Every structure is written in structure tokens, then in C-alpha cells.
């Protein structure tokens, strides 16, 4: 039924070495373009492969012409792997890396709406420490792409203040961990002003930046802020994981009247994918069906999606049929998609990069148990990172984070 998932190809192959060797040597830290998939998998090569991402799903079938997604895809929940929209024949889109997709989304929104501005450290003349804002300062000028001093608390607060009057700032934290300095502004002002003012003020701000465990960046630069922010009422949190949803979520976040925190991941910036030429956005509150299945629901987001997909290959070879959902929306959860999946498979595995205590997984377990307890055949399993500061040593860092082998073992245990 479901096609083999080779579509994520290059990216999964590149990430695979992180689980096998003790000293990962793949060049993820560099900005080189990823080469075509060739590495250590013994997956049977299929003539066609499909990447399912959205309702108007993209067909990466090399044999036939790729078919296009419709104009302005707002719905991101796929139905079946092989279904494709009745679309007019159009250009196959263009290929780019995830950070370029973010930039495209940002640029398009800045062109579309003159109230959109960017502020952050080294976003302007330097081009952004991960190149997401490269070229924007030359194009839009210093007033719309602002290089701030190193004062996160202040410039986040200023962004929120500007948003109160109707401007639509995009605040970049050079690393999400630095936004801890702005926690008060994000929690008390960003999240609560719409409520405490009785609806008078909306805060259409987007706070974005890379987070997550990278390649030996040290404890302070490997934090997962989604678990700290998830309790703040009034904000929305989304996590992008592919160039397609990165651009879509960026655009949707900017257009949203609510404050949105967009979590990117340090290791995913160089993912390559072909995305549509047309304007499209991704729904902020919807999860993405990555791989439909029957046996077990695997809920994940951001970088762990790729560990899960890698594990899925092994699982398929072993005869399992996992359903993989990239939850994308971390606050609020898309309980509709998740619920439908639970009703079908009756088993849930959550794979996240947050720490065990108080992470997104913990909240997800609570939400699923509350709403879908009757449909569960087994207790929900959650694989999270260890409750430790991320160590610098490569081997220790690997053990901190969930690896594909653990995912395979967990599914096997769940499906007994």
C-alpha cells in the first residue's frame, strides 16, 4: 500500500551515520549541498518513490513527470500515499535547501506586506548566522532588516511593542537558547497581552530560531526551548522539518494574527527538497502525515522525524507498518489527526528530542490519554532525550538523543 520511503533520500542517508559510528563524520556541520542518496542502506531500490507531505501530495516519481500541488495548499493532512490532486500540468517546482526555503518565505511575505520586518543579531549585513536572512538587508534596507545589539530581552520586547501597534516583526534568536533571556517578554507580554487587554491588542509577531541538539555545540547551545515555552498561554508553537513545511509555516506564521514561535533545528538547515513555485502556506495547527500505516502511530517532530523515518525502513523490512505523523504544531496539538491515527492503530509511540521531564512528549501523552484512552491497546511509549545537560563529547551527546535503533526496539516492544 504505502510506497517505500526513499523520498527523503539524501537527507536521511546523511543523518544515518550519526547512529552507527562513534565519531560521526558526515559533513552536516558544513554548508555543502547533500549528494544523492547512496550510503549504508540495504533497502531494495524501487523504481518510484514518493514523499508524502500534503493533501496535494508531491510525487517524486522519477519515471513520470512530477505532478504539482494545487494553488495555495492550506490543508496539510494527506489521505493516501499514492493519491495526487487533479492538477494542471505545471512546472516541477524548484529545488532548494531548508534555510533557502525559509528565506524565500520570509522574502515573499516582506514583499507582500510592508509591515513585515526582521530583527535579530547579525541578520542584516552579516546575512544571518545560518544564512536565513541573507540578501534581505540589501533588498529591503536597514529599517526593515535590523541588526540589533546583543540584547535579547530588549529587542524581543521591542518587537512585541512594535507588534502591538500593527507592525509584523520577525524576531530571530541566533540560537533558541538565547531567548531564555527574553522569557519574561515572551511569556508575559507576547502571550498575555491579547487577553489582559480584553482583545484590544493582537501581537502578530513571529519568533524564530534554531534550537535542538546539534553537532557537539555544548550544553548551553543545545537546548530545546519548546518544552519551556509550551505552558505559556496565548502563543502558538510550530516546528518545521522539511523545506516545504519550513516555507509554508514561515509564511503562515507571519500572516497569523497570533504570536507564533517557529522552531527550526540546527542540523536541518541543509536539507534539500523540491518545492512548488506557487504561493502556498501550511496550516499552523495541522500535523503532517509522513507515512500512513496500520500497526503503530509514531508521533514526532523536527529532527527526530528523520530518525523515525530511518527506523521505519528497518521496521518495514521486519514486517511492521508504522504510521508516522510529524505533529508540526507543538501548541496546540492537532488532536484530530492524532486521534484518527490512534483509532486506527491503537498503539502510540512518541519520539521527541525534548528531555523526558516536562517535554512535548509528556504533554502529548497526557492529551492522548485524556482523549483517546479507550482506543489504546497498550500504554503510550515515549522516547525522549535524557534529563541531562547535553555533553560536549560526541559519544555522550549521541546517547543523550534518541537513535533509530531505540525506535525500532520500542516499536517491536509495543507491537508484541
Amino acid at each position: 500500500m504505502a510506497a517505500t520511503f526513499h523520498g527523503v533520500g539524501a537527507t536521511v542517508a546523511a543523518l544515518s551515520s550519526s547512529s552507527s559510528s562513534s565519531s560521526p563524520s558526515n559533513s552536516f556541520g558544513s554548508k555543502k549541498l547533500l549528494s544523492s542518496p547512496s550510503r549504508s542502506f540495504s533497502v531494495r531500490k524501487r523504481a518510484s518513490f514518493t514523499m508524502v507531505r500534503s493533501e496535494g501530495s508531491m510525487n517524486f516519481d522519477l519515471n513520470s513527470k512530477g505532478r504539482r500541488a494545487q494553488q495555495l495548499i492550506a490543508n496539510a493532512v494527506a489521505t493516501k500515499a499514492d493519491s495526487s490532486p487533479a492538477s494542471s500540468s505545471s512546472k516541477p517546482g524548484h529545488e532548494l535547501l531548508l534555510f533557502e526555503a525559509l528565506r524565500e518565505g520570509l522574502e515573499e511575505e516582506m514583499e507582500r506586506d510592508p509591515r513585515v520586518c526582521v530583527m535579530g543579531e547579525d541578520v542584516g549585513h552579516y546575512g544571518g548566522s545560518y544564512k536565513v536572512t541573507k540578501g534581505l538587508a540589501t533588498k529591503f534596507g536597514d529599517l526593515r532588516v535590523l541588526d540589533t545589539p546583543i540584547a535579547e530581552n530588549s529587542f524581543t520586547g521591542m518587537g512585541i511593542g512594535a507588534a502591538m501597534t500593527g507592525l509584523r516583526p520577525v524576531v530571530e534568536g541566533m540560537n533558541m537558547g538565547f531567548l531564555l533571556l527574553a522569557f519574561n517578554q515572551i511569556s508575559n507580554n507576547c502571550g498575555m497581552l491579547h487577553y489582559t487587554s480584553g482583545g484590544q491588542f493582537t501581537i502578530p509577531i513571529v519568533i524564530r530560531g534554531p534550537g535542538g541538539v546539534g553537532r557537539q555545540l555544548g550544553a548551553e547551545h543545545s537546548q530545546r526551548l519548546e518544552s519551556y515555552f509550551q505552558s505559556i498561554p496565548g502563543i502558538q508553537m510550530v516546528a518545521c522539518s522539511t523545506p516545504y513545511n519550513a516555507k509554508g509555516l514561515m509564511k503562515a506564521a507571519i500572516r497569523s494574527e497570533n504570536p507564533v514561535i517557529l522552531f527550526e533545528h540546527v542540523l536541518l538547515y541543509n536539507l534539500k527538497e523540491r518545492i512548488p513555485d506557487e504561493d502556498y502556506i501550511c496550516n499552523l495547527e495541522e500535523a503532517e502525515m509522513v507515512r500512513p500505516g496500520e500497526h503503530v502511530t509514531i508521533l514526532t517532530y523536527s529532527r527526530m522525524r528523520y530518525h523515525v523515518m530511518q527506523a521505519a525502513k528497518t521496521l518495514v523490512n521486519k514486517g511492521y507498518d508504522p504510521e508516522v505523523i510529524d505533529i508540526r504544531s507543538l501548541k496546540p496539538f492537532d488532536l484530530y489527526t492524532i486521534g484518527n491515527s490512534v483509532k486506527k492503530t491503537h498503539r502510540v509511540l512518541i519520539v521527541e528530542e525534548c528531555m523526558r521531564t516536562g517535554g512535548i512528549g509528556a504533554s502529548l501523552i497526557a492529551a492522548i490519554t485524556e482523549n483517546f484512552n479507550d482506543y489504546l491497546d497498550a500504554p503510550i511509549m515515549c522516547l525522549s532525550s535524557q534529563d541531562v545537560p547535553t555533553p560536549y563529547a560526541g559519544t555522550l551527546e549521541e546517547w543523550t538523543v534518541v537513535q533509530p535503533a531505540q525506535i525500532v526496539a520500542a516499536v517491536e516492544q509495543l507491537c508484541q
Partner: protein
Amino acid sequence: MALSHLGASASRSSSLLKPLSSALSLRRPISGDNSPLTVETSVPFTSHQCEAPSRSVETNPKELLTFFRDMALMRRMEIAADSLYKAKLIRGFCHLYDGQEAVAVGMEAAITKKDCIITAYRDHCTFVSRGGTLLEVFAELMGRQAGCSKGKGGSMHFYKKDSNFYGGHGIVGAQVPLGCGLAFAQKYSKDETVTFALYGDGAANQGQLFEALNISALWDLPAILVCENNHYGMGTAEWRAAKSPAYYKRGDYVPGLKVDGMDALAVKQACKFAKEHALKNGPIILEMDTYRYHGHSMSDPGSTYRTRDEISGVRQERDPIERIRKLILSHDLATEKELKDVEKEVRKEVDDAIAQAKESPMPEPSELFTNVYAKGLGVESFGADRKEVRATLP
């Protein structure tokens, strides 16, 4: 900006060749001795709300040779770290200090190991000047057990408690309130020691700095805030980030001193002055005018926001090691060859340390869970089955 110094430096180098007074005219063996020598700093100090110390610095041949050796060691160490990073033995973030060695070395000469130093992530050389070994440095950079933080900290987390080096911090500016806290503890215990809290020109715009400064001034804490102004906060030049780049004046009611950070003797003089001041009058700000040759970190080429001419200009005119070398040669304290031999020795030391560090093993898996909490203190009970029950009082 850094460029303004290039013009003035030509006259500076000539003054080095004319020592004010020298007790000896004969050359002594390279091990040097303690006979006094007075040297003038490159530029006079500029002060804010206080009287600047004298330009004449008391030193001696031994000290100068020690400066030379230590700075050469630090320079070599940082360049070796650069190569190791490119060979992917060091990963993640690596912020190099080459060009700024005079600050670490000059500061150390003015204080004792009982005084505290705390700095940000550009901490390799400060760690060494506080007594850290090369093995600890390279092993930590490569994530090995022999590292100063057992491989769990990395480049930005070097600490040495027994010589009062408090790190090693990744978040910009967060170390300054910590430093003021160290000063508070020193005042509390009546130690007659001071704390040097180092930060960069980028961090100078952090609010927490001014908060900590206010409290330190209010409570008369022996805190010395040292701004290592290398003129760039990653890719942003100081004039684009600060309305007033006169960092030594930004304390307002707190006195400040601007120092040529490429002149180890000036740094020493300033730190000595600052220590005396802080013990009597409370906080003081030192601005060290310095420069980094590398980019912000190994992932930053360092040439997109400044010209190569600027970098090589500073290297030619103001390099701290060259300044000391010229001083030593002009006073006949050692020959060219002897200095070159020192550099060779230092190079070998670094290479040996790297080889030794490579032998050190990676941390054990169980190390992942150690040092999260400080255990063994007599009152614990963790776990679903209370396996770690212990309730004896120490």
C-alpha cells in the same frame, strides 16, 4: 575603530627602542633575572572619573621573557586548535583568542591565584594563564576524559576551581552578574581579593551588565569589569551596536580606564591599579583595546565584515608578541636565536600535548549521568523504588 590605531603606532614602536632607564647594559642569560626595568606603555591611559596610573611600568627581564613564552604558547595553542578543528577533531563551536593574548598574560602578572577571573567563551588562553595545562585544554576540546571538564563541557566551558578560574560561559553577558557575585563573596569573607569579570564589546550592550554594575557600586564590591574590546561582536562592528563605543565610560558613576590591550605591560599596570582601586572604592571598568585575528569562531571566516588589510595591519603594527620581542631585543635580554628557540620549544610542547590528548579515551557512557546532581551528601531518596534511599546527616 581599530584602524585609528594604525597611524599612531608608528611613533609608538620608536619609543620602545629608547628605554627610560635600564639598570643593565650587559646581556644576561635567557633565564632572566629580577633586576628592575622600567618601560613606558605604548599609549597613555585614558581615564573616566578617576586618575589614570602612570605610563611607566616596573618590570624585569624575567617577567618579560615569561610574557614572551606564555604568549607564544597561547598563540601556538590557538593555531593548533584551528588545525584540529579543520581536521574535525574539535567540533561545535571554537572561539580563538589569538591576538588578544596580552590581556590574559598582563592580567595574570598583576594578581594572585586567590583573585578570581571569570570570562565568556573565548576562554582557552585565560584558562592556561590561570594554570591550566595544555593537555587539559586539548583533551577537553576533543571531548576526552583528560579534559578539564572531563570532556562534557567543551570549548566554552573551561573551569579551574583551585586557581579561581570560574569559566567558560556560552551565553553572552551572563558571566558578568556571576562575576559580581564572586566579588560579593570575596567581600563577605573579607578576603582582600578581587574579581575580574571579562566580557566583550558585544556583551557590553547586555542589560544584565548594568544591573550588576549598579548593585556592585551600591554595595562597594571589589568587582573589576573588563571589556575586551576587539571591535566586533561576531559580524557587527562596535559602532553599529553601541551608541557610545567608549565602553570604559559607560559605567557612568563607576570609574573607568581605557588600556591598550595589545601591550601586556599596560594591561599589567592597569590591572594592578584596578585591584588597588576596587579594594578601596568598589567597582571599576577596564576597557582593553584589543583585536582578534580569527573570526568570531571557526564557523566565521572573519573577512565578510572587515578587510584583510585591517587584519594584517594590526598584525604588523600592534601584535602583542612582536612588541615584547622587540622590547627584549632592544634591551639585549636575549638574542633572536634564543627567542626563536623558545618558540620552537613551545611548538613542541603543544604538539606533545596534542599527541597525549589524542591518546586519552572518550568518556564512559555512565558519565552521561554523573554530575547532574551533587550526590553523596547524606540526604537522598530517588527513584520509583527508592533505590537510592539514604538519610544520614553528614
